[in-house]
């Protein structure tokens, strides 16, 4: 059993301060356990959001020693052996109290995305998809909506461009719809303009912090950027579309081998 010192930020949107706590750490503890222990020992009014303690609900996001992390998945033995552990709420969202942020920006941004709209059903009344076609987008379905990627994205975090750019979580949701074999909505102009794909400079911090290891940049944002190039920046592709007309999506149905 070893005592460790925690510097936890306490306050609200108006301001606050770091308060220092000490607590005993036993084997197997995660940072969230330590925070709960502090809460019960010496800070009953410490606000912290959590739910599953299994890295699946995405509610316990915070900054631990300056890094956006899920506190329930950050083991105490992964911390430096000595020195205080600094705990802060996420920077890119307004603080409500202590470690709790208001993440409602995300829900507003989500509303700007036209929902999944499949093509008409086949004659026998079913929708058919092939695994090979959905492999790509299943990766994005792993998202927990922990918003750590949104917190670390410098476009929001440093530059406050929340209006101009929707951020990585919403780029991969857009990618999962855009690449969907059944979906028929064209979101490319929206991705460029309203969601601001050009603001991402692919510096990959979102990918580095994602607890689900979703390859946000390489598999989501860059493919979207390439589709935006097809539509708006590539003179040859634009000329081909003028001459031959736009590519007809899903002319044929996927071939199912019974």
């Amino acid at each position: 059993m070893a005592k460790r010192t925690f510097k936890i930020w306490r306050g609200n949107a108006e301001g606050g301060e770091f308060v220092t706590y000490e607590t005993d750490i036993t084997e197997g503890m995660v940072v969230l356990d330590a925070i709960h222990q502090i809460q019960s020992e010496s800070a009953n009014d410490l606000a912290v959001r959590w739910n599953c303690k299994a890295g699946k609900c995405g509610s316990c996001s915070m900054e631990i020693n300056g890094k956006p992390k899920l506190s329930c998945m950050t083991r105490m033995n992964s911390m430096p052996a000595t020195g205080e552990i600094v705990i802060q709420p996420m920077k890119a969202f307004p603080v409500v109290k202590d470690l709790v942020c208001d993440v409602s920006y995300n829900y507003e941004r989500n509303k700007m995305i036209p929902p999944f709209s499949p093509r008409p059903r086949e004659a026998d009344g079913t929708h058919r998809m092939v695994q090979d076609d959905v492999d790509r987008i299943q990766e994005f379905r792993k998202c927990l909506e922990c918003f750590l990627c949104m917190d670390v994205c410098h476009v929001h975090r440093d530059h406050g461009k929340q209006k101009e750019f929707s951020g990585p979580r919403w780029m991969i949701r857009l990618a999962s719809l855009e690449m969907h074999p059944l979906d028929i909505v064209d979101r490319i102009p929206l991705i460029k303009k309203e969601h601001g794909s050009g603001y991402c400079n692919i510096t990959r911090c979102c990918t580095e912090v994602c607890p689900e290891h979703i390859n946000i940049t390489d598999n989501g944002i860059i493919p979207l950027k390439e589709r935006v190039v097809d539509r708006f920046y590539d003179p040859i592709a634009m000329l081909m579309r003028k001459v031959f007309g736009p590519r007809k999506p899903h002319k044929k149905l996927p071939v199912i081998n019974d």
Partner: protein
Amino acid sequence: MASSPETLPGGHIIGLGETRRKDNWWASPIMTVVYIGAALAYGTWAAFQGDHYQAGPYLTPLYSPTTLADPAAIGGAGGGYGHVWFGNFPSWWPSFIPASPALLILPLPGFLRLTCYYYRKAYYRSFMGTPPGCSVEGVLKGQYGGETKLFLWQNFHRYALYLALIYNVILFYDAGISFFYKGSFGVGVGSIILLVNASLLASYSFGCHSFRHLFGGRLDCFTCDSPSKAQHSTWKFATWFNERHMQVAWISLGFVMFTDIYIRSVSHGIIPDLNTWGANMSAAARPAAAALGL
């Protein structure tokens, strides 16, 4: 302890390079600056030399394809030695610019790497500080436009790729002819280096995000008809390389420079090339093309 004026609610410090991170986040941007800086410095130096770029059947990749040559250059191509596309440098070539064929072709791979989706991360972070590290405060507060304004030209990356694919074929051609010296087949350390170099640069192109998009990624349905099924295969092929694009980017950049250093050193006679022909590949072993009266 009240929160000081330079922190935000949440205790985040404001100011360039400020962070609560405790690890050595600055190590990787510094290494990037050193590595890219060294490659740029060496590449520029080598490109301005204009000589010792050909040793026996080996042509350094920095000078390939040799479009124009200076026949007076020692260890250079021209005058029937090596392969030159369009003959000698014209007489009006300004004397203050070295008659170096590298200067004519290096902008192309330079543009590919400049607009590469991987190198963009590397230099936006290390050279431009947008951001210098993850959850580390960066520069350009409020004026940041990403790739929407000043950096719109990044969207032309695929055109650099098209040219690079041609360049890849030329480098394999160079590697191929390096196995033939004075008409006979053989192997030298130089030929193996050239083959490895051409393969690394091809792997770099195959892992390009634009390549992955153009050869399949742009489709929503990979199984709808036989052309899209074929593109599913090319997309999977590109994805394999794409997952290793960063590593290949670093290794291939270093290897191009290494290849140039090797061939340049052989041409200068600093190191001998081991080969099955038993030939001395240094420039001293053959007269410059001009001396032959060619």
